[in-house]
């Protein structure tokens, strides 16, 4: 088998040649016309916003920081600008049922005008109505009516008094009512005198009094009727005068809004109501507060509770809009989305009316687009349910949460729902999108269009130029210094490193912007006007330094011998594995000692991590694959009679992933073959049942982790890392690693199979079966097989106890 050579330095890092760029600095580059690398997302947005069917709302899925919001909102603003401005909406009083305010649709920009017109109208009415009621004509007619009523009363009492007087009887007012009494010398007759009267006379008086009393009773019963008739007549008169006073003022408005039937209808209702309530214009009811404190209130329509009924509450005003609205609701609570009825405290009691209805984001975005952050919508109580209900029903119904959940049954407002036509665009992580698809049946119905954002693009020369433009654009947006082409090239290289792939570029805008801003900071600190490659490098180094306390602590403990990692010599059943730790945004690799012990047993490979539940399922899977590999390769015709234990030494916090499975296999093979493994090498890669080494993640960090340790102890020239050959394309290693490899002080070996790996680690041939099916003598595989056969035989011997007893 040919020996695996260390990778050439060029393979470890794919640089970006600044000379390929024609520009000197990024300032010379134009802005990008379209979002780079997001063709799929752009098409989805175009489709989703273009199709006007129910349920075609959008969900923009992708990692945060990829510029979803900006791309989508820029696109929508551009699109919306060319679309028609939607209607204005107001709420007005429903005079026959104030609990159910009317929604009034007006052409765009007209709502505020109507509100002002109504305010003026009320002001005008408050002067023109009293004026109409102060005319001589009105006063006279009113007096006539009042006199009529008075006359009725006077006549009855006069008649009674007259009749009484003729019979010597007077009508007297008592504390409790009225009474008739016989008179003598203009005074009520003394009871004694009365007794002295002849019997006949007394009876006559009693009879007369009784008759008068009955007449009085009859009249008193009639009195309310006369009063009522009087009031009715007065009301009819008031109505007539009011109609005259109101008519011409409202006619003017009606003429103005003649093309808008709902407005005309509203004005008709106003006219009717003003006539019904004309007294309020004559003697404005004082506000309760003013009545209590005695302070006069300013004569303003708004502060007069009665005149609130004629207000126009503008919910949506498009007087300053250009095109369809694009609304982003930063705090999508239920109320902020659906709108709400606010409450006002008045002398300790709270009340609400149509004038206290407030629009939500759905009102504002109606006829256009609404952008929402999916996580925020979902984390606000009932916001998601409210949003879905509005979209499902196609209307916005302002209800308090208490009403919506039937928790409160006090009388409250039931505003007329407003028809809803809006495209909602949710922004969120992909996982959230998938979860919603699975868990929420309605989600699929309401959000039919997924806008899937890429997080990386191919690193082709054309894309590198686009990326340079992106850098220039971001620098301009952020008002940063221009980047020279060396700096641009360095940023592109780093972007590939962030993508963890030499052939890709990261589209994580936030990370990129951070790097540009920080490079700008260091450049300005140096007092230069153009960002150079070294500034970018400094920004990267500084980011790493700030984040790497944990990494340095870890390395320090290894160097002090607290954590035991060998980088020299050779040990049986012990290998350096590599793992990646990412406590925050910064990831780093570090070596872990993996050991294996074998003894006679029933063919089980015990993963100690799994036994104590310190490993995840993927790690456990990797270990179980090892048994498969061992059994198939070395023990296909007999039972695997070993018991092996594998452990990550000094690991206390759990292991996940199968990237150490090849290392575990090497340790196991070494233990079986009793062949030492070079500790100057570290291993990463997963393995399948056929013994092929497979790609893993975080290859750059892992190599650098081992390199840093070796470098600290002093590079011997023997040290290196075995990586899966399929990971070579991902290599974007640090400059110092590349330089060490160049100088032959460090090595990176691309490994395809376990045999290649074990040969490198032991310095012995792995060995292939010859035509007779045997491994060559002295090869690692031969030793392993021999050991397994020996173990199997021993086990077989143990399995026949009677025979052995017989022999003795």
């Amino acid at each position, binding site marked *: 088998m040919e020996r695996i050579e260390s990778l050439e330095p060029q393979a470890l890092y794919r640089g970006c040649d600044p000379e390929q760029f024609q520009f000197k600095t990024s300032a010379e580059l134009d802005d990008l016309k379209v979002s780079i690398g997001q063709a799929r997302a752009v098409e989805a947005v175009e489709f989703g916003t273009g199709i006007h069917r129910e349920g075609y709302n959008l969900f923009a899925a992708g990692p945060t920081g990829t510029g979803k919001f900006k791309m989508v909102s820029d696109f929508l603003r551009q699109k919306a600008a060319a679309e028609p401005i939607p209607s204005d909406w107001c709420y007005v009083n429903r005079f026959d049922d104030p609990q159910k305010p009317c929604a009034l649709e007006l052409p765009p920009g007209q709502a505020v005008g109507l509100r002002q017109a109504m305010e003026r109208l009320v002001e005008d009415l408050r002067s023109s109505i009293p004026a109409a009621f102060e005319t001589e004509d009105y006063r006279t007619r009113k007096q006539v009516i009042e006199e009529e009523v*008075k006359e009725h*009363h*006077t006549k009855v*009492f006069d008649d009674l*008094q007259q009749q009484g007087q003729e019979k010597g009887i007077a*009508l*007297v*007012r*008592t*504390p*409790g*009512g*009225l*009474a*008739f*009494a*016989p008179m003598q010398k203009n*005074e*009520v*007759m*003394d*009871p004694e005198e*009365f007794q002295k009267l002849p019997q006949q006379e*007394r009876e006559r*008086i*009693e009879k007369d*009094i009784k008759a008068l*009393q009955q007449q*009085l*009773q*009859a009249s*008193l*019963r009639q009195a309310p009727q006369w009063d009522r008739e009087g009031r009715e007549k007065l009301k009819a008169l008031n109505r007539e005068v009011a109609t005259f006073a109101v008519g011409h003022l409202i006619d003017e408005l009606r003429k103005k809004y003649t093309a808008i039937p709902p407005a005309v209808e509203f004005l008709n209702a106003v006219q009717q109501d003003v006539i019904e309530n004309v007294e309020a214009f004559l003697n404005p009811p004082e506000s309760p507060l003013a009545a209590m404190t005695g302070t006069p209130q300013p004569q303003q329509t708004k502060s007069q509770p009665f005149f609130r009924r004629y207000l126009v509450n503008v919910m949506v005003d498009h007087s300053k809009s250009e095109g369809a609205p694009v609304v982003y609701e930063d705090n999508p609570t239920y109320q902020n989305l659906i709108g709400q009825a606010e409450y006002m405290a008045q002398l300790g009691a709270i009340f609400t009316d149509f004038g206290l209805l407030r629009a939500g984001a759905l009102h504002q975005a109606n006829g256009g687009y609404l952008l929402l952050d999916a996580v925020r919508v979902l984390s606000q109580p009932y916001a998601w349910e409210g949003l879905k209900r509005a979209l499902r029903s196609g209307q916005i119904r302002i209800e308090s949460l208490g009403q919506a959940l039937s928790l409160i049954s006090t009388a409250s407002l039931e505003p007329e729902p407003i028809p809803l036509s809006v495209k909602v665009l949710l922004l969120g992580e992909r996982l959230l999108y998938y979860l919603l698809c699975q868990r929420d049946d309605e989600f699929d119905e309401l959000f039919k269009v997924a806008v899937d954002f890429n997080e990386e693009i191919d690193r082709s020369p054309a894309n590198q130029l686009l990326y340079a433009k992106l850098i220039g654009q971001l620098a301009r947006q952020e008002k940063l210094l221009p980047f020279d082409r060396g700096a641009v090239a360095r940023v592109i290289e780093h972007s590939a490193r962030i993508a963890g792939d030499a052939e890709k570029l990261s589209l994580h805008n936030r990370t990129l912007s951070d790097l540009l801003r920080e490079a700008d900071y260091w450049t300005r600190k140096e007092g230069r006007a153009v960002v150079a490659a070294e500034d970018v490098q400094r920004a990267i180094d500084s980011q790493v330094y700030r984040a790497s306390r944990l990494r340095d602590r870890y390395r320090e403990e290894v160097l002090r011998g607290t954590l035991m990692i060998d980088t020299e010599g050779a040990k049986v059943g012990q290998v350096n594995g590599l793992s990646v730790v990412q406590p925050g945004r910064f990831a780093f690799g570090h070596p872990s000692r993996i050991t294996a012990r074998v003894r006679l047993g029933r063919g089980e490979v015990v993963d100690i991590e799994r036994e104590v539940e310190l490993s995840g399922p993927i790690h456990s899977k990797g270990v179980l694959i090892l048994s498969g590999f061992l059994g198939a390769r070395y023990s296909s015709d007999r039972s695997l009679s070993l018991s092996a234990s594998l452990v990550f030494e000094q690991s206390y916090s759990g292991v996940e992933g199968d990237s150490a499975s090849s290392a575990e296999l090497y340790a196991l093979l070494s233990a079986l073959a009793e062949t030492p493994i070079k500790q100057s090498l570290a291993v990463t890669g997963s393995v399948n049942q056929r013994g092929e080494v497979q790609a893993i993640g975080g290859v750059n960090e892992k190599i650098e982790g081992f390199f840093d340790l070796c470098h600290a102890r002093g590079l011997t020239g023997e040290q290196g890392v075995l990586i899966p050959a399929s990971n070579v394309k991902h290599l974007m290693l640090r400059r110092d690693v590349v330089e060490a490899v160049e100088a032959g002080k460090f090595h990176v070996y691309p490994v395809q199979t376990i045999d290649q790996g074990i040969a490198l680690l032991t310095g012995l041939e792995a060995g292939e079966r010859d035509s007779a099916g045997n491994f060559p003598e002295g090869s690692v595989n031969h030793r392993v097989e021999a050991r397994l056969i020996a173990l199997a035989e021993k086990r077989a011997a143990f399995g026949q106890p009677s025979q052995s007893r017989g022999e003795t």
Partner: protein
Amino acid sequence: MSEREGGFTLRRILVALDASAHSLAAVEAAAELAAAMQAEMEGLFVEDINLIRLASLPCTREVRHTASVASLDLEQMERALKAQAAEARQALAAAARRAHVQWSFRVARGPVAHEVLAAAAAADLLTLGKLGRSRSPQARLGSTALRMLAGAPVALLLVEHRRVGAYRLRRVLVVYDGSESAGRALDVAARLAEASCVNLTVLMLTDDSEAMQDMKLVAAHAIERRSIEVRWQALGLFEGHSLLRVIQSDEAALLVLSLSSPRLPQATVGKLLEHIRNPVLLIR
């Protein structure tokens, strides 16, 4: 109102009370006047002998406003009158306390007008509501008030209950026609205005503009030592309408009138009183 050299004094104000809204308003007005003039108040509640008799008669019944009929008895009537007296006393006490005025209260039984007249003889001013309890529904001037207008030997303050706002003296109006009695009214009005720190408006009744100038000179001279703000307003010789309108334009203003002015016969004054709602102080 007794006059002395260099001015008049107002020591005792008799308030005839019947616990009606008008008489309660009269209490307030009297208390204010008493405070301004440092007088004391004497409340009088008359248990109407007519009502006592009425209750004792076997043949009488009470017809309630609800058109129901109830029998009358003396005990019940006395209890009702006692309650009214207590209410009147309370109102008087409260008003006097507010105005920091000395007061007394008594109850008499007999014919109302007679009792009031008898008590008024010992007072400087008689105050009463323009309408009483026993008024006929449409009357604008009560029977007792009318009787007092004709027969009371002292000055008279008639007050009507106002539906809005409590009574508070803001302005004094006085009708002046140059007669001697009008001069007395002017003097009283000026004193009141000065004591209460309010404006005085002199309404001069004359047709003759020359006479008016003389009248004004005399009047101005009469009140020149009072530190008050005076407005002059000339009206045609008792032109009912214009006088009425001026008075009606400020219903809170106190009107001071002389009852013995040759240009204002008693009948005219009676008519005037029926049409205005201002408190009126009538000087003999």
